[in-house]
C-alpha cells in the first residue's frame, strides 16, 4: 500500500510538473463553460447575450435539455472525449513507460522490494487514472450544465466516465507496449496514433459492409413481401420480373455477407474504439434519455432503395447494433485484446536486462 501510494504520488508530481495535464483539464472545463454560455428559448439560441433567431433550433421545437444533450453528444463525446481529449491525454501520459525504463532511473526502481509486474502495472494504471480525472471533470461539468441550463438531472450521464476510461485504455495499453519496445515517447505516441487510425479504418469498413449487408437483406425481404402480396391478389403479372430481381438481390446479399463476416471477425479481435463510443451513445439513449444518434443521410441514401423506407432502415441498423454489438462484444473483446497487450508488456519488462 505504501508503495502504491508512493507511485501514485510520484505520478501526480510528474504530471503536475508538466503543465500539459492541467492545460488539458482547463480546456475541458472551458469547453463545458462555453456550452453553458449557450442559451436557448422559444425564439432561437443565444451565445453569451448575442441572440440568433432560429425557426428550428428553439424550445418550441425541442426542450432545452435536449439541446444541451445534443451538444454533449456531438461535441462532448464524439469530438472532445474520444478524439481531442484522448489525444491530449495520450500526449501527457505517453512518456510514463519510456521514462520508467529510462536507464538511470529504472535501476533504482527495480532494486526496490516490489515485483516488476506490479511496478509496471501500477505505473501504467497511474497514467490511466489521471486521464480518467480529465474525463470525470468534463462529465461532471456537463452534468451540471445539462442540469442547470437544461433543467433535467441525468445521473445516467456518468456511465460515460468508466466507458471513456476504458476507451482510452485500449490506446494506452498499445502505447505502453510501444514504449517498452521502442523506449521512446515520441515513437510510441506516433505509433499509437497510427494504430488508432488503423482501428478507425477497420471499424468503418466493418460498419460500411454491415450497412450493405442489412440493406441487401431488407431488399430481399421487401421483394419477397411484394411477391407474396401479388400472389395473394392473384396479380401475377409482375411476379416473374420480381422473382428475377429477387434472385439478383439474393446473390448481392450473399456477396455482402461473405465480405462482411470476415471483417466482423477481424474487428472482434481488435480493440473497438468507435464501437465502444457508439455503445456508450446507445446507453445514453437508454439511461439518460438521449436521442438516437442520427445516421448520416449520405450513407442511408447510398444504400437506400424505393422499397425500403429510410426510417425502417435506420431502425434496423440500430436494432442490429443493439442485438449484436452489446457490452460483451464492444468492450469485452476489446479488454481481452488489452489484457494480451499488457501481458506482453509485463512479460517483456520482467525479462529484460536494464
Amino acid at each position: 500500500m505504501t508503495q502504491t501510494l508512493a507511485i501514485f504520488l510520484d505520478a501526480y508530481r510528474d504530471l503536475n510538473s508538466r503543465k500539459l495535464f492541467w492545460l488539458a483539464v482547463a480546456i475541458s472545463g472551458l469547453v463545458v463553460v462555453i456550452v453553458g454560455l449557450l442559451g436557448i428559448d422559444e425564439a432561437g439560441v443565444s451565445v453569451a447575450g448575442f441572440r440568433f433567431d432560429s425557426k428550428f433550433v428553439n424550445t418550441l421545437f425541442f426542450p432545452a435539455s435536449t439541446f444541451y444533450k445534443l451538444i454533449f453528444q456531438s461535441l462532448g463525446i464524439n469530438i472532445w472525449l474520444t478524439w481531442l481529449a484522448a489525444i491530449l491525454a495520450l500526449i501527457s501520459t505517453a512518456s510514463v513507460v519510456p521514462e520508467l525504463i529510462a536507464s538511470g532511473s529504472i535501476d533504482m526502481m527495480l532494486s526496490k522490494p516490489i515485483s516488476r509486474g506490479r511496478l509496471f502495472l501500477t505505473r501504467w494504471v497511474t497514467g490511466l487514472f489521471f486521464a480518467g480525472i480529465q474525463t470525470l471533470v468534463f462529465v461532471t461539468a456537463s452534468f451540471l450544465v445539462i442540469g442547470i441550463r437544461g433543467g433535467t438531472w441525468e445521473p445516467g450521464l456518468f456511465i460515460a466516465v468508466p466507458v471513456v476510461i476504458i476507451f482510452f485504455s485500449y490506446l494506452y495499453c498499445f502505447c505502453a507496449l510501444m514504449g517498452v519496445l521502442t523506449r521512446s515517447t515520441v515513437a510510441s505516441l506516433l505509433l499509437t496514433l497510427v494504430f488508432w487510425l488503423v482501428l478507425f479504418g477497420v471499424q468503418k469498413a466493418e460498419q460500411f459492409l454491415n450497412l450493405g449487408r442489412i440493406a441487401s437483406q431488407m431488399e430481399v425481404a421487401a421483394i419477397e413481401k411484394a411477391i407474396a402480396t401479388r400472389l395473394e391478389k392473384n396479380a401475377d403479372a409482375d411476379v416473374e420480373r420480381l422473382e428475377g430481381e429477387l434472385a439478383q438481390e439474393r446473390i448481392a446479399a450473399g456477396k455482402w455477407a461473405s465480405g462482411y463476416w470476415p471483417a466482423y471477425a477481424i474487428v472482434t479481435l481488435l480493440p473497438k474504439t468507435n464501437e465502444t463510443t457508439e455503445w456508450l451513445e446507445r446507453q445514453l439513449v437508454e439511461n439518460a434519455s438521449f436521442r438516437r444518434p442520427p445516421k448520416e443521410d449520405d450513407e442511408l441514401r447510398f444504400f437506400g432503395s424505393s422499397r425500403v423506407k429510410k426510417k425502417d432502415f435506420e431502425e434496423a441498423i440500430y436494432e442490429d447494433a443493439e442485438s449484436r454489438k452489446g457490452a460483451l462484444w464492444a468492450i469485452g473483446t476489446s479488454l481481452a485484446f488489452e489484457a494480451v497487450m499488457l501481458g506482453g508488456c509485463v512479460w517483456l519488462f520482467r525479462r529484460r536486462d536494464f
Partner: protein
Amino acid sequence: MLAIDLHDVTKTYRGRVQALRGVSLAVNEGEIFGLLGPNGAGKSTLVKIIMTVVRPTTIRGTVLGEPVGTQRVLERIGYLPEHHRFPQYLTGRQVVDFFGALCKVPRDARRRRVEELLDLVGMRDWGDRRVTTYSKGMQQRIGIAAALVNDPRLVVLDEPTDGVDPVGRREIRDMLLRIRGEGRTVLVNSHLLSEVEMVANRVAIINQGRTLAQGTIEELTRDSHRYEIDAVGGPERLHTVAGPVAGAESGDQPGLRTYSIPTREPTDVQPAIDSLRAMGAVVVRVERARETLEDLFVRSVVDERGRAMPGAARAAAPEPPIAAAPPAAAPARRPPTEFNP
C-alpha cells in the same frame, strides 16, 4: 558471517556479450569491500545482478544469507546505481522519501529518517530544492541518502565518486566510513583505485568478467615487498640472495641503474650493497618499497590482457590469433585503463 557469498556468477547479455565469466565474491559483514576493475570489466553487471536489475545467466550463493534477488533481501539492501538520474520534478527530500516508501518504510519512520539522512549527507539546506539544480556531488549525496533510507544491512554503491570533485570525494569517503561505523556492510564499486585503497578493508579485482585477485590489500601486496637500490656504475646484472637482478637504466642520469630486490629483509640487501661497492659503483639510494594497489591492479590487468583481447569478448568469437593480441611484454608504465593515481 558473509554478507555476500557468491560463486560462479556468469552473465551473457543479449547479443552474446559475455560480461561475467565465473566471478566469485565473498564479502564479510561490517566491512567496506572494494570491487575494482577497468571500465567494462563487469563490475556494474555484478552489482546489478545482486540488485535484480539484470538477470544472471548462472549464479550460486547467497546475499545476506538468502537467495539472490528475493524481495526480503532487497528490503535490506541500499543501492546507488551508476549514472543515476532522479526524477526532475522532485526535490532532494522527496527523492529520499519516495525511495523510502518504495522500500516499505512506514510514513512516520520515513519522515524521521529523511531528516537524519539529509543531515548525514550534509544536504539539509538543499533538501527542498529540485534535484535539477544540484551539482553532481550533491546528486551523489542525495543518492547515498536514498540508499540508506531503509536502514539497510548492506549498502551497494556503484561508482559513488564518479564526476565528483576532490573535496566531494573526500566527503564521500568519510561517509563510507561512517556508514561502516553504523555496522553496515558496504560494497563499493570503482575504477578509482587510490580512493578505494584508502577506505576498503578488502578488495576484489575483476577484469573481463573474471576475478583476478581477492583479499585484503595487505594480502594482495604481501609478496611484493622489495628493496630498491640506485647505483651509478653498477653491472648490468647483479647477483643477490634472490638470484640475479637486472639493473634498469634510468634515462635521467648516465650510468644510473635501479636494482629491485624482491625481499622484505634488510639483511638480504647488505651483500648486494657490498658487492656493488666492491665493484666501485656509487650507491645513491636504498629504499624499502612495496607494490601499491595500483601496481597490483595494472599488473593483474596487463597480465590478463596478454591472454585475451581487451573489452568483453564475444562468446562466439574464436580465441584471438596471437598477432592480434597486444604484445604481452609491452611495459605498461601508463596503463591503458583509466584510473587516478
